[in-house]
């Protein structure tokens, strides 16, 4: 009974023994160490017996001695099954290649959709994607992952604010948000120019219209700067006022600089490890050292394989281990103030329009508390403060 699996594996035959003296055959078999099993009498002179393939020749000799006839009824076990399967190898080959082709096809890109782009951008995007390798018929597992594709595409496309890359099975979808470049207003109606913020007028360049303020005047938000009415008092003419009015504006910026900061940097040393994940079990295939780094960060990149729409339990995982270094930075108070000033300026410049200039800066307040330096900075900025205000046309005058 124990060797049943063994017999199945090695293969055995079921033979029919014809003759009267089958019991003596059984005895001789046992004595000479031939294993036989499942002995089943059919009728008076026929018995079915199972015997392993290597023993058949010896059994035949014994049968001859006992003057019994033998007939092979069935061949069982793996070797015979394999033989049978080999005979139908075309069929097997078809099955295997079908699964293989299905596997390949379901890991291919079939479709690339671009959403939200005008034809020009779409064309450029498709070209950029082609350069990365995203095109129809490419194998998905050979491509960088979606995040990477998104990053590369966003870098390549200058006139696009954002590209969202999503992968739905065998198709890629690019969602594009285009930069909106505002069109200049060409036709302007009659208008005034008014101040956008509280300021002291620094200089005026008026192309059209009647300036109402002069240099060093103090204006509030909404104060009329350039009037759209020109000409004589009695017969005013409406024009579209145009010009640039620069004013001195004060900005206040607050920054906090911690005196001690610790942060992590990469040292540049790294190790890659490759795994094949089978049913959630990660089997390392290449790269076996963890790099023996003291501090490290690990990133996992998993690329799953698909069969039709099903995710296979097999996937390829790349693990990147990068050495990190903890760096401590500490400032003296003077240094912190210096850094704070720079930061404040940077922050301010982000908010300002391009044509603005910083005229002067002043430390308004500085305070050290809880290991932090708190700075309040004041900046004097020269910027265009003019904004258009249409003049409602009064009818029936």
């Amino acid at each position: 009974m124990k060797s049943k699996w063994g017999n199945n594996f090695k293969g055995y035959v079921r033979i029919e023994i014809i003759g009267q003296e089958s019991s003596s055959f059984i005895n001789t078999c046992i004595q000479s160490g031939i294993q036989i099993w499942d002995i089943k009498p059919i009728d008076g002179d026929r018995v079915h017996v199972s015997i392993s393939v290597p023993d058949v020749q010896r059994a035949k000799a014994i049968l001859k001695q006992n003057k019994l006839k033998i007939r092979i009824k069935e061949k069982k076990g793996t070797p015979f099954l394999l033989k049978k399967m080999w005979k139908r190898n075309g069929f097997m080959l078809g099955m295997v290649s079908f699964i293989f082709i299905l596997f390949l096809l379901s890991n291919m890109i079939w479709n690339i959709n671009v959403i939200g782009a005008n034809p020009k951008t779409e064309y450029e995007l498709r070209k950029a994607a082609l350069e990365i390798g995203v095109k129809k018929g490419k194998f998905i597992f050979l491509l960088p992952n979606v995040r990477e594709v998104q990053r590369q595409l966003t870098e390549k496309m200058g006139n696009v604010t954002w590209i969202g890359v999503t992968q739905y099975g065998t198709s890629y979808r690019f969602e594009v948000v285009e930069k909106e470049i505002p069109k200049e207003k060409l036709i302007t109606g009659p208008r005034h120019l008014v101040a956008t913020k509280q300021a002291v007028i620094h200089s005026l360049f008026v192309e059209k219209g009647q300036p109402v303020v002069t240099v060093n005047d103090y204006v509030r938000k909404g104060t009329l700067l350039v009037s759209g009415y020109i000409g004589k008092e009695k017969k005013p003419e409406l024009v579209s006022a145009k010009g640039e009015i620069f004013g001195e504006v004060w900005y206040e910026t607050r920054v906090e600089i911690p005196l001690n900061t610790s942060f992590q940097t990469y040292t540049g040393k790294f190790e890659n490890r490759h795994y094949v994940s089978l049913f959630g079990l990660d089997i390392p295939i290449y790269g076996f050292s963890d790099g023996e780094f003291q501090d490290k960060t690990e990133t996992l990149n998993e690329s799953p394989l698909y069969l039709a729409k099903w995710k296979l339990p097999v996937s390829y995982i790349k693990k990147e281990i990068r050495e990190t270094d903890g760096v401590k930075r500490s400032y003296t108070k003077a240094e912190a103030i210096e850094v704070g000033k720079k930061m404040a300026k940077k922050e301010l410049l982000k908010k300002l329009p391009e044509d603005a200039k910083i005229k002067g800066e002043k430390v308004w307040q500085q305070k050290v508390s809880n290991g932090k330096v708190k700075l309040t900075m004041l900046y004097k900025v020269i910027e265009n403060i003019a904004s258009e205000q249409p003049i409602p046309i009064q009818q029936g005058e």
Partner: protein
Amino acid sequence: MGKLRQQVSKWMMQNLELPADVVMDLPRITMIGQLHIYIENHRGVKAFSNEQLKLKLKHGTLVISGREFVIKTILPEEILLEGTISSVDFEND
């Protein structure tokens, strides 16, 4: 001589509490309902058919009768028989 040995072994069995099948070379028969019968210490098959199995023992013959017999396993000293067993007889010749 044989008789003396038999007596000695019988005495050993009774007084030393050794299992009888080991001491006296007797068959050990295990049955599971009517389905299986497992015989150790046999001396070969005398006759085998659908309804009857005759086994040689050291002394005499064991006759198992029933229906639809199949010898599942047979080894030099062991045999496992399957079928519907109706009787087990000892024949002393």
